[in-house]
C-alpha cells in the first residue's frame, strides 16, 4: 500500500530570541505512521511542533501538513492537527465532560453523549471522576481527557509533546496501547519525547534531535521494534 506524506519538514530552521534553535531539519511522516522525535531538554522538539501549528514562523525551509505550509495557512494546518501540549491545556474549573463538550463545540464537531462516554472509556478515565472538575485531577487523568478530546475531534494528525512524562507505568502502558490503536486506524502521530524506552515502544521511526539538528534516524522493521540499546547509545554519546 502506497502511503501519502502528511507531515513534512524541509530544511526547517527556526530562530527564537535571536538563537537558532532548529537547524536545517528535514523529515517526513506518512499517514498512519508513529514518528518519534527524540532529544534532550532544549533540543528543539516543542519548537518543531509549534512550527507545524503555525505558532512560530520558520526562518528558513518549510513545515508542511498535507502539503500546506504552516506559515502560509496556519488555520488549515491547525484544523488537521489535534495537539497535546506538555501540560494538558484544559480548564480546571470544568469537569471532563464539560471540557470535552466545550472544545468539541468550538471545533464544530458533533458528538453524542454516547460517543463521549466511549472515548472516555477508551482512555479509561475513572467513571466517578468524569463529572469532577479538573482542578482535582492528577496529571495522568488530565492527559486522558486531552486525548479523549483528540479522539473525538477525529483529527487525522495527532501531536504529542512529552505525553508520558509524569504518568505512572500502568498509565504509560495504557497510553502506548492507545496510540498504537489510533495509528492502526489511520491517525498519523508525531510524538516528541526525551523518553527513549517509551519512544521505542510505540514509534515506527525515531529521529534523534540534538541542539536543533537531526543526528540520527532509527526504523522498526516488520518483525522487530527499534532497539532501545541502540537508540540509548546514540542518545548518550552526544550528551
Amino acid at each position, binding site marked *: 500500500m502506497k502511503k501519502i506524506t502528511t507531515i513534512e519538514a524541509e530544511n526547517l530552521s527556526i530562530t527564537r530570541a535571536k538563537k537558532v534553535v532548529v537547524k536545517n531539519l528535514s523529515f517526513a511522516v506518512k499517514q498512519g505512521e508513529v514518528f518519534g522525535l527524540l532529544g534532550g531538554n532544549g533540543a528543539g522538539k516543542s519548537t518543531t511542533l509549534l512550527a507545524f501549528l503555525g505558532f*512560530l514562523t520558520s526562518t528558513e525551509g518549510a513545515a508542511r501538513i498535507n502539503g500546506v505550509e504552516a506559515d502560509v495557512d496556519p488555520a488549515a494546518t491547525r484544523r488537521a492537527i489535534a*495537539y497535546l501540549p506538555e501540560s494538558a*491545556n484544559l480548564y480546571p*474549573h470544568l469537569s471532563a465532560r464539560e471540557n470535552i463538550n466545550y472544545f468539541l463545540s468550538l471545533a464544530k464537531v458533533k458528538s453524542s453523549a454516547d460517543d463521549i462516554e466511549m472515548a472516555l472509556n477508551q482512555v479509561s478515565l475513572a467513571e466517578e471522576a468524569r463529572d469532577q472538575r479538573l482542578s482535582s485531577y492528577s496529571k495522568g487523568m488530565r492527559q486522558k481527557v486531552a486525548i479523549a478530546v483528540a479522539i473525538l475531534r477525529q483529527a487525522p494528525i495527532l501531536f504529542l509533546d512529552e505525553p508520558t512524562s509524569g504518568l505512572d507505568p500502568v498509565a504509560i502502558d495504557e497510553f502506548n496501547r492507545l496510540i498504537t490503536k489510533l495509528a492502526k486506524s489511520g491517525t498519523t502521530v508525531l510524538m516528541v519525547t526525551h523518553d527513549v524506552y517509551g519512544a521505542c515502544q510505540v514509534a515506527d521511526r525515531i529521529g534523534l534531535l540534538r541542539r536543533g539538528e537531526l543526528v540520527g534516524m532509527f526504523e522498526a522493521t516488520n518483525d522487530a521494534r527499534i532497539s532501545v540499546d541502540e537508540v540509548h547509545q546514540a542518545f548518550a554519546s552526544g550528551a
Partner: protein
Amino acid sequence: MKTAITIAAQEWRYWSRTKLASAVALLAFILICTSVFATFSQVAKEKDTRETLQIKAEETFRDQPARHPHRMVHYGHYVFRTPTSLAALDPGVDPFTGTVMFLEGHRQNSATFSPSYDGAQAGPFSRLTPALTYQLLLPLVLIVMGFGVVAREREAATDRQLVTSGISPISIWLGKTLALGSVAFLLLLPMLAGVALSESNWSIGLGFFALYFFYVLVWVLIITAVSTWSQRTSVSLLILLSIWLILCVLLPRLVAGAAATAIPDTSQIETDMDVIMALRSVGDGHNSRDPAFDRLKANLLQEYGVKRVEDLPINFRGAVAQAAEADLTAILNEYADKRIAGQRVQTQLVKSYEFVSPFIALQSASMVAAGTDARTHHRFLREAEAVRFQFVQDLNKVHEHKMAYVDDINRNRDTDAARRTRVDSENWRVLRDFRFNADPADTRLERLFSSYAVILIWLMVFAIAGLLGARRLPEVNHG
C-alpha cells in the same frame, strides 16, 4: 459569531464558579441598586419639597396684608431650582451650588440650600450618586472581573488549545468582549430602570443612557485589549489598575487643578470689597436728598413744570428707589456676569480635556444631559435675578404712583399719613410665578454631540487595540 457566543457563555461559567468574581459582581449590583434607589428617592423628595415651597412662597408673598410697598421690597421672596428628572441619576452641580435663593431689594444673594436639605440625613449615598458610581466604580468592578479574560487563557496556554480547535483569535477576543460586555450591560440595568422611571422624554432619557452605555463599553474594550496584550494576568491587572487611576483619578484632578489656576476664582471677600467700592457711586435709594439724585430731581421738575418735589404728580421717593435699584443692579450684574464668565471658562477648559480621559468626557456630558451642569445653574441665577429685579421695580412703581410724596415723608410722624401710604395687598400680585426648567431635550442633545464623538473615538481606538492584540494571540511564545 456562534463561536464567540460559545466562548462568552464559557466565560460566564467561569465567573459563576469563581467566588471572587461572583462576589464582586453581586456586591457591585447591590451597591449600584442602593445608590440609584437612595439618590432617586432623595431627589424625588427634594423635587416635591421645592415645588411645594415655591408655591407656598408665592402665596405667602401675595397674601401679605396692606403695607408700605418698600416694606415688601425688604420682605423679599424665595425662588427654588426644582431638580430635573435626570437629576435623580446625576445631581451634577446641585449639591455644591445651592438650589434656593432669597430675593430682596438692593442685594443679589447667592444660592443656598433649602431648609429641608440635609446632606447628612441621606447618608454616604448623597455623595455616591448613581452617576459617580457608574463613572468611577463600575470600571473598577469590570477590571476585577475582566483583567484575566484573555490573559488567563494565555497564561494557561489554553489559547493555543482554542486556536488548534480551529477558531480564529478574533473570535476569542470577540467572545471575551461579549462576555464582559454582557456583565456590564446587566450592571447598567439599574440605571436604565432609573432613567425609565424618572424621565418621561424618551429622547433625552435615551441620550443620557447611551452616554453611560458607550462609556462602559469603552472600559470593556480597554480591559479586553489589555488582557489580550498581556502575557500574565498579574501584569494585566496592574496595567488596568494604573489606567483606571490615571483616567479616573489623576487626570481629572490635574485638569480640575489646571482649570482652577487658569482662572483664579477671586476670593469672596475680595469680590465683596470690590462690589462695595463700586456701589459707593450709587446713591442710597432710601434717601431722596442724596446728592446723587439731584439730576433725577431736576429732570423730573422740568418734565412736569413744577418747582418743588412736593408738587410733582408722582412720589419722588418712589422714582428715586427705582433709579437707585437700576443703577445698583447694573453694577451687581456686571460682577455676577464676570463671575459666571470665569466659571464658564473653567468648565469649558475641563471639557476641552475630554479627549484625554473618557471619564472627563462622560462627567461633563452626563451633567449636560441631566440638565444639572454649571451652565444650567447660571441660567437659574439669571432668571432668578430677573424675577427679583422685576418685582422690586414693580413695587417701586407702586411706591411712585400710589401715594403722595408728602404722606411718604411724614408717615413716621403722622398716623394718618402712615395709613395713606399703606397700599392694598392686591398690589403684591406684581410678583410673577417662577418655575425653573432645564433646557429642552433637543438643545441638550445638540450640546452632547461632541461628547458622543469623543467617546466613539475612544471606542474605536480600543476595539482596534484589542483586535491587533488578538491577531498576535497564538504566535506568542510560552517559554
